[in-house]
């Protein structure tokens, strides 16, 4: 299931967070889905999202599904992107920082799965605590 073409098809989403904006009703859509969930037209334009957002909810996984054992325990979050949509992704680079609902996070590219002896190594988006810009 963790095949090369399957992951390759998702490269724009996995590496650049490319979603859609509906030119008919203006709603921002991620993941992209062609038929607008709000107005049901197909007038979407591709747009790369900023990758900034905040934690809507989170959970730490102690019993991972097959293929994710190396990361356990890891934290999965629902992130509210600043453009509006929610996205499911792992949090990373947390160090000792405690996750809180509402904390600011930003997208980074990380290894998502190692693929064992023969499978592909999968990269994609995770979110880390937002690095505050230095004061001017």
């Amino acid at each position, binding site marked *: 299931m963790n095949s090369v073409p399957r992951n390759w098809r998702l490269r724009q989403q996995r590496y650049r967070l490319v979603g859609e904006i509906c030119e008919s009703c203006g709603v921002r859509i991620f993941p992209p889905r062609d038929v607008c969930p709000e107005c049901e037209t197909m007038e979407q334009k591709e747009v790369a999202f900023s990758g900034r957002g905040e934690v809507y909810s989170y959970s730490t996984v102690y*019993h991972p599904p097959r293929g994710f054992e190396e990361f356990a325990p890891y934290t999965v979050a629902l992130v509210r992107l600043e453009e509006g949509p929610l*996205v499911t992704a792992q949090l990373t680079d947390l160090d000792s920082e405690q996750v809180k609902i509402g904390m600011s996070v930003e997208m980074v590219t990380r290894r998502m799965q190692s693929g064992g002896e023969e499978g592909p190594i999968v990269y994609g988006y995770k979110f880390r605590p937002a690095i505050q810009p230095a004061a001017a």
Partner: protein
Amino acid sequence: MREVAVIGVGQTEVGEHWGVSLRHLALEAVQAAMADAGVVRADALYVGNMLSGELEGQEHLGALVADFAGLRGVEAFKIEAACGSGAAAVRMGYVAVAGGLADLVIVVGVEKMTDTLGPDTTAALAMAADADYEAAHGASFVTLNALVMRRYMHQYGYGHQDFAPFAVNAHQNALANPYAMFRFPVSSEKFRRARMISDPINLLDSSPICDGAAAVVLAPLGETRHQSMATVGIAASAVGTDTLAVHDRNDPLVLAGAELSSQRAYNAAGVRPADIDLFELHDAFTIMAALSLEAAGFADRGRGLALAADGEIGIEGRIPVTTMGGLKARGHPVGATGVYQIVEVVQQLRGLAGENQVPNARVGMAQNIGGSGATVITHILERI
């Protein structure tokens, strides 16, 4: 359309059946239901199942079960809607009988989940979610429910311990059900100390991985009467859907598919929530029990827990739920669960639920949920 009756029910004990194969579990339930109905043949067999391909390397269950159940030659299919597969199969049986295309239909839900190792079963269950955008990020099915649960606690100001009444009630009701997997009580204190799975969901928030099969026999109402039992009719059979992914919902704390499904069922049966004497809801996790009570109109949004805290969900309460143990304590062999729920409602409406009998039960509702709320099948049954 013809009215439809449930004229026979059968079930196997839910558990870890290492000595019994999937086909034999199905056979046992089918034979029990046929014996209960007093029938020796059928026009069609519908098999509800989610994971046989992934966990057993076996698809094509319709013909397989038909053959091994002595029904070789009948129309037979497998029907899949994740954890809602069982009720989806009942729904298709209902459609066939109500539409006049079949006079005698057997529906069996069967699942075999204990032949594989934990991480494999966990990965298989995650197939109910969005593979590209949820499961690919390491979100197990438990985790998706945990994300909803934590947000619910945050938004409405609840603590984890507030969910305990659902688990305590389910285990209490399983005590007297000989088919239940966990026939032991669970205290509020035990709930608090249970091992964490995907926080805030711990072991006692969760239904177990297990094996089981349940079956019903459907026929036109009035044409086939049970020899001795009260007749139970299907007053409504309804389905609602929602997005597969939790993140695609307008409000992840609302089971919009369950609202649609419940409303359609109430309209079809001509009843209101106040008319329902018992509710077999889909307590795969305690959070799902709370959200189901809200979506089905028994509590306002954010108030499902309050209903449980006030003792209203017990056998003698205002709306008894999981009266034979529910998914939590009877067990949740995923594709079989929806059929177990129907079997249990029939037991209640026949007045044969023993120590768990809801007094004067006349109208019962069963709601089976596929995924984290994407496919919701509601049946309302009535003692005629």
